[in-house]
C-alpha cells in the first residue's frame, strides 16, 4: 500500500481531512510535523489546507521556510508525487516549486461553496488516466485563490499542458479560469479546490476520489 506524508504546519487545519481522503483512495497516510527533515519511506507528499503559520505576511510565505520544505523539494526533484491543496498550493508557489502566485479573490471575500471543475490535462499525477473534459463537483474554500502569473508563464503552462483543472464558472478572478496547475514534469500539483471534501456520497459528492485515486496510483508508477 502506498504511504503518504501529510505535512502539518502550525496553523494547518485540513490535515485530518486529507488523511481521511487519502485512506479512502487506498493509501495509508500519516501526519508529519513541519520541523522534520526526513521523508524516506513515503511514496506521496500532501501539503494540506489551512493557514500555515497563520498566513502571516502572505499565505505560504513563512511556511516555505519550515525545515521540512527542503526535503519536500528534494522529494519532488527525484520525481516523487506532491500535491498542495488550497493553502498547500499557496505554499508551493511561495516555495518556487510551482510558478505564479495566488492573490485575494476578485470580490475580496472568503468563498466556501461547491464548484464544478473541468479536467484540462491528463498528464499530472493528480489527473493521470482522467479524461480531459471530465467534469468534477468539488468545493472551494479560500480567500486568496485567484491565480496570477505573467504572460510568458501562462503561455508556457498552456503549451506544456501544465494547466490541470479549470473552473466551469470562475469564482475568484483566476487567470484563464485556472483551478490547478502542475510543474513541467507533472509530478508536483497545486489546486485550490478541496478533493478531500468530495469523497463521500453522504457529504454530497465523491468526485474528489477520482483525483485522489489517480494521485495514489501515481505512487506505484512513479
Amino acid at each position: 500500500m502506498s504511504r503518504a506524508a501529510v505535512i502539518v504546519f502550525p496553523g494547518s487545519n485540513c490535515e485530518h481531512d486529507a488523511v481521511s481522503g487519502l485512506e479512502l483512495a487506498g493509501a495509508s497516510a500519516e501526519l508529519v510535523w513541519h520541523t522534520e527533515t526526513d521523508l524516506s519511506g513515503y511514496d506521496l507528499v500532501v501539503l494540506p489546507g489551512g493557514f500555515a503559520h497563520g498566513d502571516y505576511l502572505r499565505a505560504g510565505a513563512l511556511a516555505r521556510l519550515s525545515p521540512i520544505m527542503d526535503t519536500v523539494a528534494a522529494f519532488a526533484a527525484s520525481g516523487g508525487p506532491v500535491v498542495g491543496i488550497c493553502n498547500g498550493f499557496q505554499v508551493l508557489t511561495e516555495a518556487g516549486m510551482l510558478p505564479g502566485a495566488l492573490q485575494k479573490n476578485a470580490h475580496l471575500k472568503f468563498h466556501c461553496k461547491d464548484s464544478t471543475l473541468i479536467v484540462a490535462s491528463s498528464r499530472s499525477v493528480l489527473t493521470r488516466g482522467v479524461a480531459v473534459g471530465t467534469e468534477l463537483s468539488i468545493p472551494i474554500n479560500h480567500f486568496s485563490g485567484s491565480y496570477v502569473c505573467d504572460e510568458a508563464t501562462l503561455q508556457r503552462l498552456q503549451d506544456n499542458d501544465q494547466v490541470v483543472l479549470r473552473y466551469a464558472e470562475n469564482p475568484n478572478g483566476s487567470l484563464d479560469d485556472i483551478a490547478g496547475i502542475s510543474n513541467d514534469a507533472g509530478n508536483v500539483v497545486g489546486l485550490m479546490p478541496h478533493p478531500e471534501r468530495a469523497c463521500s456520497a453522504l457529504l454530497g459528492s465523491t468526485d474528489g476520489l477520482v483525483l485522489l485515486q489517480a494521485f495514489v496510483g501515481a505512487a506505484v508508477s512513479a
Partner: protein
Amino acid sequence: MADAAAPIHRQLGLTDSELDLIIEVLGREPNHLELALYSVMWSEHCSYKSSRVHLKRLPTTGDRVLVGPGENAGVIDAGDGIALAIRIESHNHPSAIEPYQGAATGVGGILRDIFTMGARPIAVMDPLFFGPPTTARQRWLLEGVVSGISGYGNSVGVPTIGGELTFDPCYAGNPLVNVLCLGALPTERLVLGIASGTGNLAVLLGSTTGRDGIGGVSVLASAGFSDDDDQSKRPSVQVGDPYEEKRLIEACLALLDERLVVGIQDLGGAGLVCATSETAARGRVGMDVDVTAVPTREAGMEPWEIMTSESQERMLAIVTPEGLARVQELCARWEVRATVVGRVTEPAIGPDGEPIGVLRIRKGFDGEIVAEVPAASLADDAPLYNRPLERPSDLDARRADDPARLGSADLGADLRALLRDPAWVWRQYDHQLFLNTVTGPGANAALLRLAGPGLPESNRGFALTTDSNPRLCSLDPRLGTALTVAEGIANLACVGATPVAVVNCLNFGNPEHPTVMWQLSESVDGMAEACTAFGTPVVGGNVSLYNESAGTDIDPTPVIGLLGLVDTLAARPPVLSWNDGDTVLLVAAPTVALSLGGSRWAREIHGATGGVPAGLDADAHAALCRAVASVIAGQVAGDHALVTAVTDVSGGGVAVALAEMAIASGSGLSVALEESPTAFFGEGPSRFILATADPDALAARMRAAGAEVTMLGVAGGDDLVLGQVATSIADLRAASTALLEGVSA
C-alpha cells in the same frame, strides 16, 4: 461613562451598597486593586446578579446530561463513548463598537469555553441581529461582523455551520452578535475547571497580557450605550489572533490527552482574576498569584491591569510540579507560551470549620501581598438582585391592534419583499471542515456526522439549530419564547433528529427598567414550560443585558439553541428542493390558528408592532414533530426516501416557505390559496410542508399521528402561483438576493 469626580468604586461600576458588602466580607476597606477585582467579578456580565433568581426556574436535568449550567459548557452523552459540549454566548457590545474584532473575539472566547471541557470544537453557529442594511452604518456593522466571524473562525479551523440573520430597526443602535459552539470529546476525557492539590501550579498558557479589554465586562458589557460612547469605549474591546488560538487548542488537547492537567479554565471576561478565583472557589482551595510572573505586552502595567486584562487566547492550567516539564515541552512544540503564575494553597478554616480558599495577589511568590480576598466571595458571592418587574403599560393597547386590519395592496410584492437568502453571509464561512457537514447553512437544521479527530467510531449524527422570535416576544415574551423552543424542535424534526438539550442566550434591555425584567422573567417561564413539555433540559445559557441605545431597549430576544441526535446517519436528509411531479402537502397539528400579530409581514411591510400571536399546543406540536422526525430519521438511516423535500413553516408563513422551496427546486407550484395576508403570511406553530412522490403513503403516516393533511398541489412549471398571484421563480430568486447582494459584491 463614569464621572471622573465620582468615588472610585462608582467609576468601576460598583454601587454604594455593593461597596458596603465588600467591606463586610473583608472586615475592612478594600484597597484599589481589591476593588478592581470585585468590580469585574461582580459585574452583571460575570455574576448574572439580575437574572440568577429567574434562571433557577429552568429545568436542567435529564438522562443524557453529564454537566449542566454553571460550568464553562453544558455536556451531554451522545452515545458510543462520545460526549458533546455546547455553549452559547453573546458579544453584542464589543461588536457594536468594533464589529470585526468584536465578532472575532466572540468566536475565540466561546471556543475556549468548549476546549476547556476537553472537547475539540467542531461546529459554530452565529445568530446575528442588525438594523436594516439600508444605511452605511448598518452595512459597516454587518460586513464587519461577518468578516470577523469568517476571518477568525475559518483560520482557527472550526466550521461555521449555520446561524440566523434578522434585520429590525430595534437593533440599529445595539446589534446582537451571538455565537454557539459545540465540541466533541471521548467521554472519559471530560475535565472541569477546578483547582486542587496544595502545591500544584497554575500555569498561564498562550498569549501575553496587554492593556486590551480592561473593563470589558463591567464598563462595556454591563451598561447601555449613549451617543458619544464609540470612541471612549473602544479600548475595552479585545483584539483576536486566531493563529495563537489554533495552537492553544492543539496544545491544550495534547495536555489533556496525556492527562497532565488537574483542572483547566479559559481566560475570558474578567481575565486572570476570574480564572484564578473560579478555579480556586470550585476546588475550595486558596491560590497565590505572582502578578510579576505574568508575561506582559508592555512595560509598566499595574497589578490591577494585569489581573483584569481581557487579552485573548489565554488559558490557566492547574498541573502538578512533576508534570511541569512535560507541559512545557508540549507547549514548546506548539509554540505556546507556558508560565507558572500561581500556586494552589491550603484553604483557611472558617468559624464553622469550613474551608475558605483565599486568593492572594503577590509581587513574587514570597513577596509583598497586594490583594487578599476569599476566592469564593469573588466567584460566587455577588449580591443577587430580585429587581422590580412591571408589565409594559402600553402592552394591552398594542395587543388590541391586530395588523390584519392593514390589508395588502399587492400580495406578490409583499412576498418578494419578505424573501431573503442569507447565502451572502454563510458563503464567507468555512462550513465543511472535518468532513462532517451533511446539511449546513441554509437548511432547516444543520446535520453533521458525529465524528472528529480522536473520537471513537460512530454511525450517529447530531443536529443543531438556533432560533429566535423577538417580534412575538415583544407582544408576549412567555408565549414567544415557548414558540421559539417549538420552532427549534420543528427544525430538528426536518432532519430526523430527536431533541436532547437546549442552550439559550437571553438578549434583553436594561435590567434597571422594570418592564425589561418583566420580559426576562416571563421569557424564562415560557422557556421552562416549553422545555418541560418537550423533555429538553437547559444545559447552559448566557444573559446579555443593557442592550439599549439612547434609552430605548431592544425587543426581548431570547435565542434558543437546540441540539438533537440521530441514531444512524447513512444517507442525506431531504432538504428544501422538490422534484417536478412531486405532490406537496401541508401537514399541521389539528389545533393550529394563524395570526399576523408579531408576524414578519406586519413588522417588515407595515412597521406594525401590534396584535396577539397564535398560541402553542405543546402536546400536539410534540406529536407532530415526532411523526415528521420519525419518517425522516428512517430515511437518513438508509430506508426508502418517502419525503423528497421538507420545511417547517415559520416567519413569513406558508407563502414564504413555498417560495423558498420553489427557489431551491427551480420548479414551481400552483396552490388554491385564499388571497389574504393571513392566508399568505399568517404565522403559527406546528405546520410543515412536505413533498413526496407517494402522497397516499405519507399522508397516511401523518394522519395516523393525528395530523391534518392538506394537498397543496403538484410541483412543476416556472411559476409559483398562490391563488391568482403568480411570480416567476427567476423573480423570486432575484428578490431573495437583492438586499444582501446590495451590501457588496
